[in-house]
């Protein structure tokens, strides 16, 4: 049976439609489950309830989504700007690596959720505090992937470059950094998903706008339908940002996807 299904899916567009079909089935089961078991809306709203909420409250919710997106993008951009150059320094300077890496690992081991209220006390309730939370949570995967990617350059390629007379900077620019692209994008994909979590945590702690704030505010008023709508919107943003990293990699460095395969 399994072999038959596999043969049916192979070579047709069916394989591409499978995830969509699975998602639709999941929604149908959710809808049917809430109707059959008469689950109260304040415990678990049905997909149709969430859709109705989008229809009535959608525009207002988009304003909150915009605020969250602003926090995510600012924090994520800042993470990239710090993590990639720092990764290059750490990968090429052993002493700096020995000095900084344990500190960075320790900083990453601190649960950001526990740190967020302290950051708010230090930086206030504005955008800056939320952006710092995003940076703290999304910077680490980008840094580690950059360092790993730079250190993964095959020894023979580096030797060949040395014999060709390259300087350290030339090797970094012409060999190591391009070679690290597949690793860096892996880090960006993990980092952007982490950035969404960071933005929500920041908004939980101190904000009067954003989808994280909306979730807290709605649940306080037992408006689970609105809270779930905000969560669904957050998931959509997360998927969209993750996917945009794929598109960016495909558009700018198509060879790196083949290298990953």
């Amino acid at each position, binding site marked *: 049976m399994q072999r038959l299904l596999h043969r049916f899916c192979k070579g047709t567009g069916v394989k591409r439609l499978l995830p969509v079909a699975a998602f639709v089935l999941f929604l149908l089961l959710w809808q049917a489950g809430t109707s059959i078991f008469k689950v109260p809306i304040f415990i678990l709203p049905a997909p149709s309830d969430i859709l109705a909420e989008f229809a009535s409250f959608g525009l207002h919710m988009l304003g909150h989504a915009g605020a969250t997106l602003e926090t995510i993008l600012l924090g994520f951009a800042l993470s990239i700007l710090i993590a990639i150059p720092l990764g290059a320094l750490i990968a090429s300077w052993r002493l700096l690596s020995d000095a900084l890496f344990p500190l960075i690992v320790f900083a990453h081991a601190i649960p950001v959720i526990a740190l967020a209220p302290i950051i708010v006390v230090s930086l206030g309730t504005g955008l800056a505090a939320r952006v710092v939370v995003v940076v703290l949570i999304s910077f680490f995967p980008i840094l580690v992937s950059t360092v790993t990617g730079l250190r993964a350059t*095959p020894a*023979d*390629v580096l*030797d*060949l*470059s*040395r*014999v*060709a*007379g*390259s300087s350290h900077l*030339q090797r970094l620019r*012409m*060999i190591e950094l*391009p*070679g690290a*692209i597949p690793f860096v994008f892996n880090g960006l994909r993990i980092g952007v998903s982490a950035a969404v979590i960071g933005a929500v945590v920041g908004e939980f702690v101190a904000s009067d706008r954003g989808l994280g704030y909306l979730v807290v505010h709605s649940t306080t008023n037992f408006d689970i339908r609105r809270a779930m709508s905000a969560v669904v919107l957050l998931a959509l943003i997360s998927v969209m940002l993750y996917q945009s990293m794929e598109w960016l990699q495909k558009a700018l*460095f198509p*060879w*790196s996807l*083949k*290298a990953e395969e």
Partner: protein
Amino acid sequence: MDAIRFNDVTVQYRTRRGGAHTALKNFDLAVRDQEFISLVGPSGCGKSTVLRAAARLIAPTSGSIALEGERTLRGFERVAIVFQRPNLLPWLNVLDNILYPVRVLRRVSQEDRARASALLKMVGLTDASQRAPEELSGGMQQRVAICRALVLNPKILLMDEPFSALDALTREEIQFELRRIHEATRMTTLFVTHSVSEAVLLSDRIAIMSSAVGKAPILCQIELNERSEDVLTTEKFTTYARRVRNGIYGRSDAAVAA
């Protein structure tokens, strides 16, 4: 005139336990200008160490290595290297991969592009210049690696088992091609291989290294009138191959020279 001269070269590595491993001891060898010389010998005898020391990738613990053009030439103009794997850069097309050593030293000129194209033509890959490395077969990739090594017309070409990852047919084909290139350019070539027949087919001289560290290599002059497919079955070829094997397996030096 010697293109490379190893004078009493010793190379020692530090082991993880703090000891020292001697990879090469009191090694002497003079590689003549325009000569094709192969290094053969059992695994671990120090063939690759010799090559890497000549490329200045490792510094000798004692002794010295003199290279032709050392003071006047830079990078691949002086010494070019080809490894077992082609090591092409996947983000560059074939032509840009060939031009990489030029880019390290200076801005690429029209003449450089013309030379790279001529090299591609020489190895039968004219149509591949704009293709990505992963679109090429292993043999084609290694041909591109050879073009990259030749693009700056180096004084010395170092090759570390460059054909060992290729299938037998491609390997044979590319061996003849390399010999043809050598006859056309007369570039001094130091070639490391495990294959006795490959060494005999390609070389003007073979240096047979011993697994006993510190033992001087046995030199075997190869004089073949032609280097085509027909030579492989001649008595002269098989005699040379037998002598080299005698040397590798530690039979008497006389058996090698005879």
